[in-house]
């Protein structure tokens, strides 16, 4: 993969990720990084230079990468296990289950270039199942940050949290979202970015800024859309979902499979506690070849697509 230039005003969240990990490592000697020959794709070159003895490269061996992470945690380290999300979560799923989740190991799993960032490389390199797999293991905290600020905050929160955490880190360029100066990232809390009582747009990761643009468009049609950032997928902010259901209509938007991710998680709550009409936007199955942008457009994962789904739901 050649590194595509990041457009002006947009950011690659991996940069925020490595800055946060290096900062943590600078003040906590327990912080180590574990990689599967993924120093470059995880952007950990700077970490390697600053902390050469604290980078464990196990080679192209994801099962061992996750097992070694669990062993390092047993030895008192705080390991950030970083690899392309497709390989980290799929190849090493049983290690994640047994060695990390069930064992309650203090391992921080960092799924890099998640979703369809590797669009043209095909479904082997897409990671649109990772959240569904990991959120079934209740002991793992699953975080899907939306922009550079939230990525850095999620990494710091992961380090401060005693126990397994998965952080999904996209390489797709995103803008820095506007937030109040006192904004805080808290595991288990959804973030309401825009108020609105007609429909709720629930998004995470790279879809959040698109949902905000969709809300602007809907406002021009007289539809007041609430936008809620569900970056904490597990634990999920159930109250925020119930409040969203109270608007009477929910659109969920994720750069992930429509099965078992954000849409599934929200539907589990809504169907049993506060039934309301929903649209679930995401990817249906293995995808054809194409750029990330093209794949997103094809599946309505754009501001226009989100607004259209909301209008369809509201029949306006």
């Amino acid at each position: 993969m050649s590194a595509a230039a990041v457009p002006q005003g947009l950011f690659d969240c991996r940069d925020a990720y490595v800055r946060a990990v290096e900062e943590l490592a600078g003040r906590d000697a327990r912080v180590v990084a574990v990689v599967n020959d993924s120093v470059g794709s995880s952007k950990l070159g700077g970490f390697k230079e600053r902390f050469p003895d604290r980078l464990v490269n196990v080679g192209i061996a994801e099962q061992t990468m996750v097992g070694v992470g669990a062993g390092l945690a047993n030895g008192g380290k705080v390991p950030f296990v970083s690899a392309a999300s497709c390989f980290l979560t799929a190849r090493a799923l049983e290690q994640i289950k047994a060695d990390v989740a069930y064992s309650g190991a203090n391992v921080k799993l960092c799924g890099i270039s998640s979703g369809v960032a590797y669009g043209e490389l095909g479904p082997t390199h897409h990671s649109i199942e990772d959240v569904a797999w990991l959120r079934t293991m209740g002991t793992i905290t699953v975080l899907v940050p939306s922009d550079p600020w939230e990525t850095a905050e999620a990494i710091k929160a992961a380090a401060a949290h005693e126990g397994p955490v998965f952080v999904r880190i996209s390489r797709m360029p995103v803008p820095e979202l506007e937030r109040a100066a006192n904004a805080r990232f808290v595991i288990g809390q959804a973030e309401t970015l825009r108020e609105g009582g007609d429909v709720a747009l629930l998004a995470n990761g790279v879809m959040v800024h698109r949902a905000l643009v969709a809300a602007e468009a809907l406002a021009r049609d007289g539809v007041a859309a609430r936008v809620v950032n569900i970056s904490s997928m597990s634990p999920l902010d159930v109250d925020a979902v119930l409040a969203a259901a109270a608007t009477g209509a929910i659109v969920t938007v994720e750069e992930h499979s429509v099965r078992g991710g954000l849409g599934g998680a929200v539907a589990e709550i809504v169907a049993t506690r506060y039934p309301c009409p929903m649209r679930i936007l995401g990817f249906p199955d293995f995808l054809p070849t194409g750029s990330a942008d093209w794949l997103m457009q094809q599946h309505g994962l754009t501001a226009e697509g989100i607004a259209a789904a909301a209008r369809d739901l509201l029949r306006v």
Partner: protein
Amino acid sequence: MVKTAPFAANASAGMFDHVRERANWIRRRSLQMVFEARQGHPGGDLSAADILASLYFHAMRYDPLRPADPARDRFVMSKGHCSGSIYATLAAAGFFAEDELATYMQPRSRLNGHPNRYVPGVETNTGPLGHGVPVAVGMAIAGQMDRAEFRVFALTGDGELQEGSNWEAAMTAGHRKLANLTLIVDRNRLQQGASVEDTVDLEPLADKWRAFGWEVVSCDGHDVEALCRLLDPPAKVRDKPLCLIADTIKGKGVSFMENQVHWHHGVPDAEQYAQAIEELSA
């Protein structure tokens, strides 16, 4: 820190008798657990008992009242299906009360069919095979980073070495020269459905480990004195991880179970159980 059996260089032949007694107790107690629970993996419990006793009652340094002591030696039971033997060992070592062994596989017991961290003394959850060596390698890397004195031990079955993850981890251990790591292979030559040789042969097993950068020693896995001496810290500092291939007999100590593949997870009836206990008490 408790070292349960201080080593004396001028050891007499009888100095390992207490380890042998512990091994036989582990055999009897784990078989009782399987008999009462009506399930378990007695063949592998019996083949591993001398290895476990040599570790916990001779080689390892630990304090059962402080199972999270950072300086403790670590043990990973990678052949987690032999949970009866490791639970009996941990109880005998004082990590929890022996009475609790009676709850083996009962509803809500933390002593489920595979070792898990709800049980004091269990370092990592195992059960699916091929998990223990990578985790033990991670522990050993942590020790190497900190120049810590603790040692890391792991026990795998031999059939288990068909799992590729072991060899990934073996490469990393060899590459990083993890001299604080000792792997013991319970080489009983039988797996669930047939002999290892007839399933997927492992030989030349010692050469494989050597080729991955390990020091390799073979021994009789039921010779407690040999095991204890090999598991002691080496006189000269090692510069490689150690693989100890322990030749064992599946079902060791019970005549009708020895080398019989169906006792991998067979459960004795009352008559068989009585005979087995009699043989193990001799």
